[in-house]
């Protein structure tokens, strides 16, 4: 019974990892850019949710769509102002550029919001926890999981069913061919970055009721995000979701059975093994 409880807890936190990873994997699949600033963008979204709550009394789940849209705009600015100039450069340029953005965002947060650990104060959501057959489920964690499922579903629908989605997928497969077919590749990149960052917004708003925010909160979560991205297969949104759940469960079960302080090393070792045995990840796919 206890192990079931641990697995359920792992699945729930895995939803948050999945949400963070889907933004990274989308940008990586379409634009071939490893976005090291995604963790800091998540941090910015968490602060935005917190400040909306502190300043205007906006409930975090009401703030979620606002933060998501706001971060979409941030993504557009980030691409138009910075990333598009390095899109033809090498991986190292892009990685260092996003690192520069990450360092700057961290510093701005420290300068203007201070380094304190800040937690969102809210009434226990739906009583704080649910009991299902002897298993306790924290309601904020459950909400984050549901948000992750809905966001992933919406993203998959967008990619699968809309013209924009088809353009994104075509660009991911072969940007030169897409260009020749008359797809405005640069605009696709712009929108992709917007969606990628918007997903960080969703993740941040969903995480804020669960976790404290501070300027360096993104660093650890970003590493987990990368692990999930590779596990799921670079560029695969469905893979990122599956990978997020698996990593969440591996982390929880190894913490329970071995030791929580080793769980991170175990997750990374698991990651290395996957990389070496099945480098294409669980689900191969140029954005699907």
């Amino acid at each position, binding site marked *: 019974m206890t192990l079931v409880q641990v697995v359920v807890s792992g699945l729930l936190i895995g939803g948050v990892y999945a949400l963070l990873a889907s933004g990274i994997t989308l940008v*990586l699949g379409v634009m*071939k850019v*490893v976005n090291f600033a995604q963790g800091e963008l998540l941090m910015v979204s968490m602060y935005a949710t917190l400040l909306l709550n502190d300043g205007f009394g906006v409930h975090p789940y009401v703030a979620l769509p606002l933060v998501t849209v706001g971060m979409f705009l941030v993504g557009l600015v980030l691409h138009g102002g*910075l990333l598009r*100039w*390095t899109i033809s*450069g*090498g*991986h*190292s*340029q892009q*990685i*260092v*550029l996003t*690192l*520069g*953005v*990450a*360092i*700057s*965002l*961290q*510093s*701005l*947060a*420290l*300068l203007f919001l201070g*380094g304190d650990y800040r937690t969102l104060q809210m009434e226990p959501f739906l009583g704080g926890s649910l009991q299902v057959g002897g298993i306790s489920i924290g309601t904020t964690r459950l909400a984050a999981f549901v948000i992750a499922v809905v966001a992933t579903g919406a993203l998959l629908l967008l990619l699968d069913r809309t013209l924009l989605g088809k353009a994104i997928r075509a660009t991911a497969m072969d940007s030169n061919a897409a260009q020749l077919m008359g797809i405005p590749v640069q605009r696709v990149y712009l929108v992709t970055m917007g969606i990628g960052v918007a997903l960080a917004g969703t993740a941040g708003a969903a995480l804020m009721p669960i976790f404290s925010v501070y*300027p360096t909160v993104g*660093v650890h979560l970003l*590493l987990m995000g*990368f*692990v999930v*991205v*590779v596990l799921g297969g*670079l560029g695969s949104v469905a893979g990122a979701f599956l990978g997020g759940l698996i990593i969440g469960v591996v982390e929880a079960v190894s913490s329970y059975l071995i030791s929580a*302080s*080793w769980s*991170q*090393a175990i997750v*990374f*070792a698991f*990651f*290395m093994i996957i*990389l*070496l045995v099945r*480098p294409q990840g669980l689900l191969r796919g140029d954005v699907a």
Partner: protein
Amino acid sequence: MNPTTREAPVTEPDKVSAARAAGTALVRHRHLVLWLLSLPVLGLLVAITATSELFYGHLIVITMVFAALATAWNIVGGFAGQLSLGHAGFFGVGAYTSSILYVDHGISPWIGLFVGMVLAGLMALLIGIPTFRLHGPYFALATLAMGAILLNMAVNFRELTGGEGGLSIPFEPSWANMTFADRWPYAIIMGIFLLICLGVSFVIANTRLGYQLAAVREDEEAARALGVNSARVKLIAGTVSGLLAGGVGAIYAQYILFINPESVFGINVSIQIIVLAVVGGSGVVLGPLIGALILVPASQFLLRDFGGDLPGLHTLVYGIVVIVVVLFAPRGVHGLIRSTVERLTAHRSRR
């Protein structure tokens, strides 16, 4: 010796051409000139370290540390184009090996330095065998994970490493202990090690191995078709790079006299290394050195002058400088200097 300079007759118009010939000779033999210059420059730096404020002494030593690290990284990250995000791992292994040998077993850090280098090189080899099969972002992320695993091990093997509490190295100054009250001996040791890193890097860049690495970087498939054993050359580059990074770690530990997992194995160290190399210009011998010469003193000055007043300002300026350089000098500061010089000379010859 260049014959054109000796023969030059002393007539007015020829003076110009003689000077130009001397100029070309300087360009042609610029490597030799640079190497000959490096020793007096090192001597000067040591003299500055010995005579000036502690701050400048520290500035010089720590710039050398990061210049050497970035130069070591460049062998695998620049020449071979394999973007390693886990170089803190080798740095940390070097630092912990020599410190543990010294603190727990009383073995001189000089021996620890070599043991640390060997272990770091060995580890680079062992990690390289599986990870060099990966390409592009996969390799970068795999090395990032490798670094994270090592950080975790340093935190959790507390009996060996002291855990997050860190290892403090006793202050018993002597050459045998590689511990000094002044900073100038560190400038000598670290300066020589930096020259070794640059020398190894120079030799690799200008020999068969360097060309093979460049071929692998540009197009691994094509290089293999031409008969380059890409796995082997990458492994050699990786091992040498790890070996040198380990050596820097051992000297760094003796300089700071305190290490903890975050300060040597931390993700920030790996990030710092790659930022320096890319900002300076990765793939060329002097690129990482240039990056370190600009960014390390800049960050030290920013930390000293703005750190206490407005926490976050110094890192913000640092981040913005990194962004600006990547945007406007995609091949790093070295590339910018080179293209500027080329444009100027082209301009002059046209006139």
